[in-house]
């Protein structure tokens, strides 16, 4: 991203297992850095103020909102985006469950939901429907009414923790 600022910060960050060294303007949001500097456009931006959850990524394994963080705050840390979960050829079990249960429609909120669900299922491998609903209550989906998302998460938890 071209900038007029003089004080660039030498950022070093690992994203999806790849280490990046890049000078960034301190005000660059993490979401913009991932999307427009690294070309990892799977992370989406829906509200720019941390409410909708579409921009959620994993920072050292925990869900964070990349629109509420500056890229420099990720210095020296590890980030996983949706691109780091699975591939088209080999989907992550949670992605697979979303596919089977029709847990997405337009797919815009989906990356943020997946990156919310990954640590959730690690911490709570056998969640109840109520716990699932609570876990994704900070992610807005305008298409699905959440039912198939809830079903997908249940399916994933059943499969991953047989």
């Amino acid at each position, binding site marked *: 991203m071209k900038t007029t600022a003089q004080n660039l910060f030498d950022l070093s960050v690992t994203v999806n297992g790849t280490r990046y060294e890049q000078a960034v303007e301190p005000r660059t949001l993490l979401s913009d850095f991932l999307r427009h500097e690294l070309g990892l456009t799977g992370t989406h931006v829906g509200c720019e103020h941390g409410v909708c959850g579409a921009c959620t990524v994993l920072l050292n394994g925990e869900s964070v909102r990349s629109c509420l963080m500056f890229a420099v705050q990720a210095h020296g840390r590890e980030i996983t985006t949706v691109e780091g979960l699975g591939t088209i050829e080999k989907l992550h079990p949670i992605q697979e469950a979303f596919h089977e249960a029709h847990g997405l429609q337009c797919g815009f909120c989906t990356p943020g939901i997946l990156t919310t669900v990954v640590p959730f299922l690690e911490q709570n491998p056998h969640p109840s429907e109520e716990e699932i609903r609570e876990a994704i209550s900070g992610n807005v989906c305008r298409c699905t*009414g959440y039912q198939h998302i809830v079903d997908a998460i249940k399916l994933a938890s059943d499969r991953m923790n047989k």
Partner: protein
Amino acid sequence: MEKKLIGKRIVRNEDPRLLTGQAQFVDDVEIPGMLHAAFLRSDHAHARLSSLDVSAARRYPGVVAVFTAEDMGEDWSPGPPLVSPPPTVKDVVFHSRRQVPLVKDKVRHAGEAIALVIAESRYIAEDAVEEIELELEPLPAVLDLEKALEAESCLVHEDLESNLAARLFQKKGNYEAARKEAGLVVRRRIVIERGAAAAMENRGIVAHWDAKSQHLTMWDTTQAPIPIRNGTAARLGLSEHQVRVIAPFIGGGFGPKIMMFYPEEMLIPWVAMKLNRPIKWIEDRRENFYATTQERGQVHDVEIALSRDGQILGLKDDFLHDTGAYDPYGLTIPLNTQSHVMGGYDIKNFSSDFKVVFTNKTIVTPVRGAGRPQGIFIIERILDIAAAELGMDRVEIRKRNLIPPQAFPYQHEIIDQAFAPLILDSGNYKVVVDKALEMIGYEAFVKTEQPRLRKEGKYVGIGIAPFIETTGVGPYEGARVTIEASGKVNVATGIGTQGQGHFTSFAQIVAEQLGVKVSDVRIVTGDTAEFHWGTGTFASRGAVVAGNAVHAACTLVRKKVLKLASKVLEAPEGELELDNGLVRVADIPQKSIRLGELAMLANPLRGAVEPGTEPGLESTAYFGPQYGATAFGGHAMILELDPETMMVTIKRYVVAEDCGTVLNPLILEGQIHGGVSMGIGNSYYEKLHFDENGQLLNASFADYLLASSTEMPRVEVAHLETPSSLNELGSKGAGEAGAIPVPALFAQALENALHDRKLEILEMPLSPNRLFELIHAKETQ
């Protein structure tokens, strides 16, 4: 013939890309040398522009250009009229006032664009917007629909005599005569206010003018790529073939993305050509709240005339419709309201006069439901009130008046939004209502469960709301189906997709006829380079109109396949079958040829062909219905109200839906779930609050509440199928269905929960606060 694939729960072809971050949305487009746009927008809803100085912004480091209306010179002009007024109705009034690319002299709604900054990055563009010096002279904001029509009101468009944008009257039978016969006449005023569509993806445009090839490519979050291409070419003086519009993956549409042309859609390609640089503009959420179209604001004066035994003798509904600052979308929404206010009921006498009103608010164009939820809210509310006055059961009053199955096709004798006669083509309405009642366990709940819970002090309510949805309107859509040498099938159609699963449901239609795997069908939507005839995705018409065009093209391709295979396999066409990517002789399975091989034979590189031969296994077909197919459904719910906090918990929610032939129940259920969640928002959470100056007070997701996973109930869905005779697949649309009856149902169930308060809910959307106010007002009456 038994269908193998149509009607099956097949998982979606498009999912793997979406799930892995490999699907391209507009903001994902990156082009070397691309510049970024940001707008200066008005903070005032109504104001005269007194001075505008962009010189400091132009000097700001990293800024490439700044444009005002003045800078556009002769290229400044309002957007094209999108939908003309209905030609067939007598005495229609319609004043067309269209949105402008940049404000020239007067601001007409908060958020209207005044200047455009183009810079090396979005960050710099936004910085530079702050450098613009703007003086506005505020004028009184026109907000209230009734006051807007008073003689002393300030005018949104000063060249008009009043704020009346349009007026249209329609009638059926003789309402006044019916009223005289009536045993009961009930009259109410009902107010419905605005909500936002709030697609998760904001709007966005990337325009790339390649001067060397004299070609413009535009990525746009539109539901209507082909009209955008044609209009853009016309505005820029280019051939339509010099413009390619791509609507790639779109993060939800819900109506506002069918609006054409947004100011940004007029400006961004123009600037790209002007500067000869690729330009990207991505709307932010705040802009989305101000500059993306909204809907629902109406004030109704409704009157119903009934016999003492509950038969509807006539209905009169006069209403005001808020169109916002401009009216590019014509009369679509109020006509839809007018077409739905009789619901699925046999009403012989009807009279409706609507006035469309200009206000200093964001432009109004359809939002999922598009005037239909208002119509259904009116009829269902007034029936509830009438039932109460007659001492009649609310299920009974509905069943008594539903259109009987033998009455189809049923003529409502007015025109609908497509200017076609409003004819309900088919259905079996009572069966659907009974199904919803059975699913919710209506009898048992009302007779035993509810009295028991009420004794425990619980405020539990039940409701039932039937509805119609006119869908699948014309004019037409088309599709080109090609069997390629690989044996895979490519299908191009002109509509756009915003999550409805067309990549799969259309593939099922293809696979059904051509005997290939669903995953071997590549569907292209939303790219004018692939298909350039069509209108767009709106009015719940994708699956019906484009789906039937795909079906028709497949029928032609299948004929070509059979003709050629018959020659190659030396067997009569009638003995051939298509299965598993092969054409084979039914009784001699080893005698077969792969579709790919056949495609190659159909496109020879040498030799002579018979005169008139078309190359390849490819056909294009179009489908345009005579009039739209009308779906029907019934929703029922049980809710519990906390009398302290006024928070509502939905205990059960059921949907019985008849949208004709179901293509894919999995996708259909998803559409219904999503529609219901929007309807629940429209009922109890989502209201745009404007203050007395026309300022939107809740322009963020922190303040404008969307239903989240914890508010949404599990929605149980049952499908009943009365195939439409208006198209070969027998389908009817369902995209908006989920949202339509919810406010009517919600109001009924709330009143039922509060039965001892005798509350009448005559407005939407509500909220816990507003319900508290209504109850309090009733108590202190």
